[in-house]
């Protein structure tokens, strides 16, 4: 456990992933440092989600090694332990429809055998953390709005206080205003909690806003890793193309207003 700072929290070492004849990820090398928000940016099919799922072993690399805190899990028990130590938030939220909000959030603590009182306190604390009122604890997911559901999704991922958070387009399905609100809250939350976050998105604006570094991906390869400021100035053709597309959207809207 010495030299903690030197060991990246997550490390991809020459990882490739293949399904049948389709190469989804190849020669992937990346290190995620403690407390940073690393954004995986790329279009659909670029391998962002696959990379994320390799971290919590929903997928196993075809070759290479994905290490979490310096180790890669061996065997079923290791994998389960690893997953419970990592918060996971997905676009479709995936709340358990037959559980109340309280039970949804408290699931990992419960299967980890926390005492009931302790779970209850933790759930209420988390509801407050994600900006929800305590009286929705007894409700069911279908009784909440999309934004509320994703907040619960985040609370559930934070339940056992994991050091790492994996977020797969968590705000992608929300309307722009709710998305903006959740992004802002994510930043505030991250200032307080300093989790190591890997965040998948195809939205440059979101990447620039939330990421401490942006890893740009294309066809299963890592193109470049840049800070948001570097990204905007980058001469890399793909990065520049993203910036241009982003700028053109705003520009043409503005032009249409004047003509």
């Amino acid at each position, binding site marked *: 456990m010495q030299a903690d700072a030197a060991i990246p929290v997550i490390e991809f070492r020459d990882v490739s992933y293949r399904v049948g004849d389709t190469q989804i990820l190849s020669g992937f090398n990346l290190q995620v440092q403690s407390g940073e928000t690393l954004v995986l940016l790329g279009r659909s099919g670029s391998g962002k989600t696959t990379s994320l799922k390799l971290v919590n072993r*929903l997928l196993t690399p075809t070759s290479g090694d994905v290490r979490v805190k310096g180790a890669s899990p061996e065997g079923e028990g290791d994998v389960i332990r690893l*997953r419970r130590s990592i918060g996971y938030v*997905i676009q*479709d939220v995936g709340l358990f*429809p037959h559980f109340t909000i309280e039970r949804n959030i408290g*699931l990992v603590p419960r*299967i980890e055998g926390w005492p009931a009182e302790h779970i209850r306190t933790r759930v209420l604390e988390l509801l407050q953390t994600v900006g929800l009122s305590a009286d929705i604890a007894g409700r069911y997911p279908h009784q909440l709005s999309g934004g509320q559901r994703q907040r619960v999704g985040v609370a559930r991922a934070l339940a056992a206080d994991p050091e790492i958070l994996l977020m797969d387009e968590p705000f992608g399905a929300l309307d722009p205003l709710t998305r903006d609100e959740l992004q802002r809250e994510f930043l505030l939350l991250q200032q307080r909690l300093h989790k190591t976050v890997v965040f998948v998105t195809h939205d440059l604006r979101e990447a620039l806003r939330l990421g401490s570094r942006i890893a740009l991906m294309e066809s299963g390869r890592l193109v470049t890793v840049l800070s948001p400021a570097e990204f905007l100035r980058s001469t890399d053709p793909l990065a520049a193309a993203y910036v241009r597309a982003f700028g053109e959207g705003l520009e043409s809207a503005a032009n249409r207003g004047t003509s």
Partner: protein
Amino acid sequence: MNVFRFMWHNQSQVLALTLEHLRLVGFSTLLAMLIGIPLGIAIAHRPRFNKPVLASANIIQTIPSLALFGFLLPVPWLGARSDRLAILALTLYALLPIIRNTFTGIRGVDPAVVEAGRGMGLTESQLLFQVELPLAVSVILSGVRVAVVISVGLATIAAAIGAGGLGEFIFRGLAMVDNRVILAGAIPAAILALVADFGVGWLERRLQPR
């Protein structure tokens, strides 16, 4: 109302045959659930096997019931007691709706929910018992309901091989060309089917996930 007078006079026999009928249906449904639900879960998780398993259950379903009873008659241990044989045959018929609905129910669980659960570190058995089965239970039970209703009807034919049950009245009535006797078997069988349908249906709604 000759029928009811006949049933009243033979009430002890009506009761005995009804109980026998219930026993045939009850045992066979239970057996079919014990086999069909795990099998349905297995093929939902291993899609490679779903076609052969569902096809086999389908083929069994197409065998005419009287013929199936006949086929099984010469089998040594089975043929020795006709109620054993009847229970086996009824079990085979009940399999299809139970396997199929279990399969459909489990496959119908939102993949995002399963992925979230797995990603959070639920073990496969926690995933099955805490997520998949509770969410599929009403679909599975509606398969059981179909199976029970089919069995109540089919079990009347078991009397043809001497397995007892309400079919005895029906066959006897047919032989005697006496509608009262036929109805003394048919009416309680119909009531059984309705009650079972209602009962399992009630359970189904009770266990329905929100």
